[in-house]
């Protein structure tokens, strides 16, 4: 019997009040220990899909499920099982990295762990020890991004949603981030990542999906993409060529 996907979209559709069809009947699944990279340009619908998983908006049709829980029917229960890192992690600037981590960890419903657990998480994401007790107001985007990932690690949720997580990171930070992502996958996390970065997607993802104008126009395991020119493939699908393949 096939294992239930940790993250699943089924006919997921979102039409806004102004009539714009942001997401048009997309379906995909992310298993435990799998990274799903959702590629697409601006306005393709990647962030809308993530917002539907987080129940920030309700679907017009279809369902987003986290561990079988329909997010718009039982959002609080669904959110217990998912961590989220946005494109530009914004935390409380008057709090230290440790205080931010403590707040968001406890907000996730977990009891407060010892301070050493926070330090371990921050060190794991590559934040230098001397920055742990500093207020966030002086942090660079990369440092804040690391704090955001540490928060996701501390939540220890089985699913992780990443919205353009490497956007704006320098190459070193991007490289470290990919390494971290791989280790989280190895721990069994189901990871859905939206990104513009074709090459990092190919490097880390188990499944790559390409979105264009709210539709999932291509979906393939990354092993099938070996040897293919990803950029060309991406451009073909964005331009309307190539068919949907599972």
């Amino acid at each position, binding site marked *: 019997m096939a294992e239930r996907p940790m993250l699943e979209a089924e006919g997921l559709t979102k039409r806004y009040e102004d009539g714009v069809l942001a997401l048009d009947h997309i379906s995909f699944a992310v298993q435990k220990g799998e990274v799903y990279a959702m590629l697409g340009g601006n306005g393709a619908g990647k962030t809308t899909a993530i917002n539907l998983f987080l129940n920030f908006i309700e679907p017009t049709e279809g369902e987003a499920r986290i561990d079988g829980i329909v997010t718009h029917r039982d959002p*609080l229960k669904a959110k217990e099982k998912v961590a*989220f890192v*946005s494109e530009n992690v914004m935390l409380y600037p*008057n*709090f230290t990295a440790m205080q931010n981590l403590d707040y*968001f960890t*406890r907000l*996730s*419903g977990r009891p407060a762990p010892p301070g050493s657990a926070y330090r371990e998480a921050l060190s794991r994401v590559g934040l230098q020890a001397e920055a742990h007790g500093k207020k966030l107001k002086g942090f660079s985007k990369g440092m804040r991004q690391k704090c955001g990932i540490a928060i996701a690690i501390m939540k220890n949720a089985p699913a992780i949603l990443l919205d353009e997580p490497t956007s704006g990171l320098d190459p070193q930070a991007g490289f470290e981030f990919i390494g971290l992502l791989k280790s989280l996958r190895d721990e069994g996390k189901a990871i859905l990542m939206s990104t513009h970065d074709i090459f990092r997607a190919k490097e880390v993802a188990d499944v790559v999906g390409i979105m264009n104008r709210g539709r999932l126009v291509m979906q393939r395991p990354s092993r099938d993409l070996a040897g293919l020119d990803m950029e060309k493939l991406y451009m073909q699908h964005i331009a309307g060529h190539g068919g949907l393949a599972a």
Partner: protein
Amino acid sequence: MLKLVIEKELRDILTSTKFTVSFGACAALILLAFFMGAAGYKADVARYDAARRENLKQMEGLTDWIMVRNNRIFLPPRPLASLVAGVSNDIGRTTEVHGRGELPQDDTRYGEEPVFAMFRFLDLEFIFQTVLSLFAILFAYDAISGEKERGTMRLSFANPLPRHTFLAGKLIGSFIALAVPLLVPILIGCAALSLLGVPLSADEWARLALIVAAGILYFGAFLTIGIAVSAMTARSSNAFLALLVFWIFAVLILPRSAILIAGRAIDVPSVDDINAKKFRYSEQLFTEDRLKMSGFTPAKTADMRKMVEEFQMFMGQIADERQKKMDEFSTRLNEERANRQAVQSAAALGIARVSPSASFSLAAATLAGTSVSMKDRYLEAAQGYQQTFGKFILDKTGMNPGGGMVFRMRTGDAEKPKPIDTHELPAFVFTPPVLADVLPPALTDLALLVLYIMVFFAVAHAAFRRYDLR
């Protein structure tokens, strides 16, 4: 989870530079209000004592009580009136008592120091009504929209956090973080009152505590409406603008408009109209009395003393009759005006209470004993004293005071009369309202402030349920 959001809010506010700066300014103003109140009270007491001494001094040397023509009574200063001025600076503090007739109230604080009428006094009511309501807005306008703009809202709601918990945590956390520190300068101010020698009875302390409680409720109402407006807007700059407009309407426009609207709706004759009617009636009575005077013929023309006494009695009688008629006429006119004014006031206050600012002002002034009823209370006490004084003069002289002419004849061999003992003069006692008197009317406004908080929270809740968290 509610506790966690409250803790976060407390820490977020208390560690911000915005809090340090604005709280410092508010604390300084609160302390200033207490110190100025204490200084003002002591100056009022000194002035009151000097005026009373001067009143008795000008009677010294008089040899007959009938010669006492300008006995004055004074509204005693009250410590709470220095902290919440209400109408105390607008009403006359000195009244000349003749034993009968009208009781003019002269010597208002603003009349004495008109520059204060321009800018008013810096009292606790002003601090709460104007400064602290702005302080509340300053922290509430971005409570929700600011979290969205800063991007922390998405991360917060990626967790199993119910919206109502977040909203309640925001409100409670902000309220504790802002209201509790405000109690520190208030408590220091209270301690300073004792140290500066301002005597407050237990009853007055209780009323001051209730004034502060009303202020905190008012602050809570503005904090809640601030959060509600913040939950209705996506951008905190829009929320700030909307709240500023609300503040201007609630604090500056609505209470004043209410008086104008009520004034238009319910016509009350002016004091000048009333005085003109009284003057005309008085002239009419004098004309009638002049006819009586011209017809006066003494019965015993041989004895000069008896003739003067007869004339004096005749003049006293017509003066008494004239005054009686005048009093009846004045009472009727005053009552008519007072009744219409009461209806107008009730309408004005009813409309004004739509604003939390008016509810707070009314609650604070009522609790301090400086509401609009203060004037009536003082006038009532003055009228009571006038009767006592009139009876005293009648007992001492055998004549009603204040009317007619008085002749005293002395022959050279008579014993030199002794001066009057001014200590015999009945003392004017003004009984200020106590807690039991002011609490029932103040409860209406306190309840209204609680209602405003509940309504604004319901609005905030309804708005935040539909709030776009993205």
